[in-house]
């Protein structure tokens, strides 16, 4: 186990760094924790308080509006199955976690992507950081999150946000950089300011790509939220973890199936977002 030749104590450094953070920035993380737990509790309340059929009607209506009656029908059946498997509450907890994490990830990553698209210097910094965040095994994030934020849904949310940032920033940068340069030039040639060009030309034209990035954020969030069940995140992740530790096949199948149904719903709904508002350019 021990290395004879040389040993770089990166882990120890990280640990002492983390200790320092806990000691000095404890108040900050208390604030973060309070914010996320409030946010989560509020959204969770909205999803779990009404009777299940009311929530299903709302979600199906959303699916109908964004995609059409097929998706509306499919999601209604899917959610009824979840309810029938007695996973409704868990599914709603998980949905709330995913939404909180995704929203925050979008709010951070999209502006980051825009900054990276506008400035090559920013891009050079952002790229390796994103590579790091995305390839680091997801479990590793849970350790500092646990130490800093304690057990419960919040460390899960924070770890999820970090894990899901990368595609948002990447897709946004790609989208904005690949906007037809002549159209951007047109904005410049008529005397539009850079902010105006961003708002009226670059972001609208990059929207399909940005939405694809948001879709990726949501899907990554869902996968991470399940992992976060291990640190007391609750919801379907908690059920999956409980089934694993208790070797409980029925619970494992039912909660796993619920995750799949939720994932398909979220994917189809957000994927259709990226196709809305395109005018038969073909």
């Amino acid at each position, binding site marked *: 186990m021990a290395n004879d030749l040389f040993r770089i104590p990166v882990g120890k450094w990280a640990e002492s760094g983390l200790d320092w953070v806990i000691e000095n920035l404890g108040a900050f993380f208390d604030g973060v924790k309070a914010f996320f737990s409030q946010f989560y509790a509020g959204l969770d309340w909205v999803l779990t308080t009404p009777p299940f059929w009311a929530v299903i009607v709302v979600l199906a209506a959303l699916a109908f509006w964004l995609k059409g009656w097929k998706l509306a029908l499919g999601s209604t059946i899917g959610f009824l199955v979840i309810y029938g498997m007695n996973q409704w509450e868990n599914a709603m907890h998980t949905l709330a976690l995913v939404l909180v994490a995704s929203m925050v990830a979008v709010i951070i990553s999209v502006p980051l992507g825009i900054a990276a698209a506008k400035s090559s210097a920013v891009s050079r910094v952002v790229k390796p950081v994103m590579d790091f965040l995305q390839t680091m095994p997801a479990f590793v994030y849970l350790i500092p999150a646990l130490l800093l934020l304690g057990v419960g849904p919040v460390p899960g949310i924070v770890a999820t946000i970090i894990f899901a940032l990368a595609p948002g920033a990447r897709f946004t940068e790609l989208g904005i950089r690949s906007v037809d340069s*002549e159209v951007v030039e*047109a904005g410049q*040639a*008529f*005397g*539009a300011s850079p902010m105006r060009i961003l708002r*009226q030309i670059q972001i609208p*034209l990059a929207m399909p790509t940005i939405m694809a990035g948001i879709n990726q954020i949501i899907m990554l969030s869902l996968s991470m939220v399940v992992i976060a069940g291990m640190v007391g995140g609750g919801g379907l992740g908690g059920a999956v973890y409980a089934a694993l530790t208790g070797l409980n096949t029925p619970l494992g199948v039912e909660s796993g199936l619920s995750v799949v149904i939720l994932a398909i719903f979220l994917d189809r709904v957000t994927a259709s977002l990226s196709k809305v508002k395109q*005018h038969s350019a073909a």
Partner: protein
Amino acid sequence: MNSTIGPPSSALRVTNAFKIFGRKPQEALKALKDGKSRKDVAALGTAAVIDASFEVKPGEIFVVMGLSGSGKSTLIRMLNGLLPMTSGSVHVGDTDISKISGKRLRQVRQKSVSMVFQHFALLPHRTVLENAAYALEIQGVDKKKRTAQATKMLETVGLTGWGDKYPGQLSGGMQQRVGLARALCSETDILLMDEAFSALDPLIRRDMQEQLASLQADLGKTIIFITHDLNEAMFLGDRIAVMRDGEIVQIGTPDEILTNPANEYVASFVRDVDRTRVLTAGSVMENPRAVVSINGGARAALLTMREQQTSGSFVIDRNRNFRGIVTDREVMALIDRGDSDLTEILTRADDAVSSETALNDLFGRSVESNTPLPVVDEKGRLVGAVARATLLAALGNVPSTTDAIQIVEPGQSAGNNDGSQQPAIFAPDPSGEKGGLL
């Protein structure tokens, strides 16, 4: 070409403009100014525009023509500051745009210089009307006013009723009309057009060229038009700058470029131009030889034709207005009848062509006529003649200035004959004289 110096006389003035891309533009610039060539400085950077200087007069269509890679697109982007220049200056009116940036530069773009793009560059998520009104929107014009203005401009370019459509629903030609309407809407005096018609089908392109020419005649915009198509340049341009490898090799009117190319490169370029579209009757015509006054009578007419050895003659009146043509046979008959009034036997009084007419439109008439075509100025005065041989010689780029072209078959056509008379019987300049016979 010889526009006077001083800002007020030119709408846009470019002085010693350089644009060098690459890592060491200043070093490359210095080398270029020391007389090094574009190839010599390739290691330091790409010299896209080298020492360009020209002036564009208000209301002029100035065409910059060159093959791809000649630097013309870079040049046009320096005119509104889309690309900052490495050295030199560009004056738009009195403002040197090489010295301003940010807000002031944007103001110049809003008020003075608008642009039309090769691939239209419309906003696909906005309607045609909103696209046309875009420049006004940036200027902060309120919605009602800009909608009214944009609707009017869409009408001007022939897109009435298409305002609610999206660009993706329009054909290429129509999209470029929207691009044109957008640029016109901003009401700037200067219009930059970057290969504006190059992405269009040939027929539509021709259509758009004609529309642009007539729009320009109505609105009097100053237009700087970039193209790689020589025929387009010749058709549209009041003056043309030919670019090669970043340098302007010749600036001149289409006629000058065609008949007097500055070097072998320009000459090889103009070799395949459709001359018939560029050259006009006025530019190839020769002095009319056989001309008689309507008051001179039949015997004088016969004498003239005999001296000129032709079988027909132009007839003019006291004011040099073209009245028609008489032939020897009919004059003889007239004399036999003991009559002398030429008005009785005048024919083809409507045959005169304007000196502005393109050669293209002369062929048909020339074939039908057995005398040279009479050329008249805008007041109807006879200023010259175009014989069939002259027409053919012009196509072959044989200098079409004077004599030299005595290939008329005798008896068939009353062409100009040998130069026993001094050639300028009827000088094209309107200095008065009496309409006597030669």
